[in-house]
């Protein structure tokens, strides 16, 4: 009985993954027409990016500060407090920046996207577009999807910079690490490869989080409960997908 239940759940998960992949194909087909309408795209970059800026900066500051405390505690055991800048920078740029930004993005911009599209479904706006011979995937979904992908690396970069500022605030200002070694060791140890790793991760997370948000919103049941459920599923599936992708990408980068 449990085996049958597990296999049917696995089949359902595979079917859902297939539907998401087909939807992604449909969106990709409409990306070029969406790019020809820069006004819509800029609006969505603003919605997903600029409107998430405060929460990203605030969280980046705290994460950087906590990272400095933890890294200092670890490094002083080996007498390497001067490497605090390197530890904070690598931790933020390669891992914490992209992952936490993606999780925050899913909670702030992803839910906004899903509920907005879900409400458009519930109020017949998407149906009205279909009846006016306008593909809602081109007009509504593709600009939001692209806007999310473009916004994510920008938000990640902001998170990294503010996080480093927070780490410097605690490391240099509170814990007494020398400012010169904090910045110079960071400069010499962090390479463009590390930065590219973070950039590629944030782009992949941008695709994953934006895709889940527009998919869940577009396929929401046209009821209040359906829109709420779509919003919840956006956060859950984006978080799982982000962490899964993070493992796969980290393994791939370390392997190469």
């Amino acid at each position: 009985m449990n085996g049958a239940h597990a296999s049917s759940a696995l089949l359902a998960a595979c079917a859902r993954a297939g539907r998401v992949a087909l939807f992604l194909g449909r969106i990709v087909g409409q990306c070029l027409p969406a790019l020809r309408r820069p006004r819509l795209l800029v609006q969505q970059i603003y919605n997903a990016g600029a409107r998430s800026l405060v929460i990203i900066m605030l969280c980046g500051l705290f994460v950087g500060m906590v990272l400095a405390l933890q890294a200092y505690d670890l490094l002083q055991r080996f007498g390497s407090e001067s490497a605090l800048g390197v530890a904070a920078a690598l931790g933020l740029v390669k891992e914490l920046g992209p992952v936490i930004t993606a999780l925050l993005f899913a909670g702030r911009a992803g839910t906004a996207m899903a509920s907005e599209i879900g409400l458009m479904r519930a109020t017949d706006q998407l149906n009205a577009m279909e009846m006016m011979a306008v593909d809602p995937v081109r007009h509504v979904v593709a600009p939001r999807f692209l806007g999310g992908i473009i916004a994510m690396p920008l938000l990640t970069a902001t998170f990294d910079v503010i996080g480093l500022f927070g780490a410097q605030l605690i490391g240099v200002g509170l814990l007494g690490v020398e400012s010169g070694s904090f910045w110079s060791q960071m400069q010499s140890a962090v390479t463009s490869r590390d930065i590219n790793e973070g950039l590629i991760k944030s782009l992949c997370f941008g695709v994953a989080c934006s895709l889940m948000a527009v998919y869940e919103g577009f396929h929401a049941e046209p009821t209040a409960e359906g829109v709420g459920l779509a919003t919840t599923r956006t956060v859950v599936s984006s978080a799982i997908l982000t962490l899964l992708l993070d493992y796969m990408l980290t393994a791939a980068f370390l392997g190469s």
Partner: protein
Amino acid sequence: MSDTRAAGDSIVEVRGVNYAIGGRTIFDGLDLQARRGEITAVLGPSGTGKTTLLRLLMGAIAPELGQVSVFGQDISALDRHGLYAMRRRVGMLFQNGALLTDLSVFENVAFPLREHSRLPEPLLRRLVLMKLQAVGLRGAAELSTSALSGGMARRVALARAIVMDPELLIYDEPFAGLDPISLGVILRLIQSLNATLGISSIVVTHDVQEISSIAHHSFLLSGGKVIATGNPAKLRAADAAVVNQFMHGLPDGPVPFHVPAGDYREQLLGGDW
């Protein structure tokens, strides 16, 4: 009951359509047609599949059996491109207006033009203002959709539906939830648009009195098929029990007031809840 009118000048034809949702039969051999230049009313109690019929006409869903033709084209045979080409010739008014909430009144009406034409801005602006003038809302062009009353939203949606100069206008419950003044305005607009622009109209509604005053021909749906057809006067005079109950708004009859349930006394006194 099948419609026996001449099919030569019909703009919409539904022939022997069967459709079911989740095992529940919605249509069982549905036949009807709408003629060019006429206002055709599709009447029926709630839950008879009137909105489903509109979705069939617009190609949003496909019948399991039978054929739906619009402008002489079998809808099921059209690909996405063909379906969109057909829809450009049709205007549709949704029950709640379905205005795009992130756009102003003007931009809502301009939306189909911006999507389907490359008209210069001054010409587009004039066209939109003419359509808004036709529905009496030129003065509301710059308002946001959230500032509109239900009746005004319906009129903006009507302006949007006619902005591409469609050959066929489909109305889904255009009178639902309107105050008497807004209702009168919409009624007059349906009639005047039909007469002055030569548009054919299909009005799906359960408001018998209102539509009877302007419809050229009516179909009454019940039990998945057309049970009566003719002009409104003929339908009102019909002696079939279901038709009589619906046309005269009787609370009980073949469509029962009570949902079937067990014995009332037993349920109240038996404590078996």
